[in-house]
């Protein structure tokens, strides 16, 4: 089960497992963003390439306005996935 929500400080909170069958809700929130946001991965267990595609599309859209996503609190598996994808070169990751 994947969930996406907005936290008290405007951060985007991801939780559960972001696989290809759960991608629509992530897309609808992330692609609607119009300003820079922190995306908190602390409760996200798993991400597949479908999820990477949504993150990349959102970052490209925001970059056209001089904005960006910042990704925080990644577990080791997700950190590896993003590193091997070269996302650490196009996202700020903490």
């Amino acid at each position, binding site marked *: 089960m994947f969930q996406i929500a907005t936290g008290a400080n405007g951060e985007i909170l991801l939780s559960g497992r972001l696989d*290809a069958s759960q991608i629509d809700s992530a897309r609808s929130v992330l692609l609607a963003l119009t300003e820079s946001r922190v995306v908190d991965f602390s409760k996200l267990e798993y991400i*597949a390439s479908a999820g990477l595609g949504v993150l990349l599309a959102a970052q490209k859209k925001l970059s056209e306005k001089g904005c960006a996503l910042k990704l925080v609190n990644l577990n080791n598996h997700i950190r590896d996935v993003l590193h091997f*994808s070269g996302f650490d070169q*196009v996202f700020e990751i903490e």
Partner: protein
Amino acid sequence: MSEETERHDERAPSEPSLVRLPRRIDALARLFEFSEAFCHADGVDPGTRSRTDFVLEEIFTNFVKYNAAGTGDIEVALRTCDGLVEICVTDFDSERFDLREHAEVAVDAPLSERTPGGLGIHLVKKFAKRIDYDYQNRMSRITIYLELG
């Protein structure tokens, strides 16, 4: 090498766990249930379990998306052997698709030039210790070996 890893290496190969799933994205939930049961039974560490799920999803969804016209279920088999997880995914009605021949992805390109296409296969190749491929009589079988943590 840790004591836990040594124990994995000394174990005899496990009996393969096998499931056949319909050619649909919504079968992913059953695929992950199958993987979880296998990893629990075989004592697969959490890091390798995440990579196993990742590889399974990417190969399974590749068959679903790019061979939607194929008939019949897709077969998935898992086992541990010699310190490795063996992941075998078979489509019995498919064109040839050897992911080892897949073009490299430019993961160092600037953001404006990035596209998500091919990232899943790129990551599967990064995670794999070894990849085997067999194609005959429209049967396409991909076998991927991951090192246990």
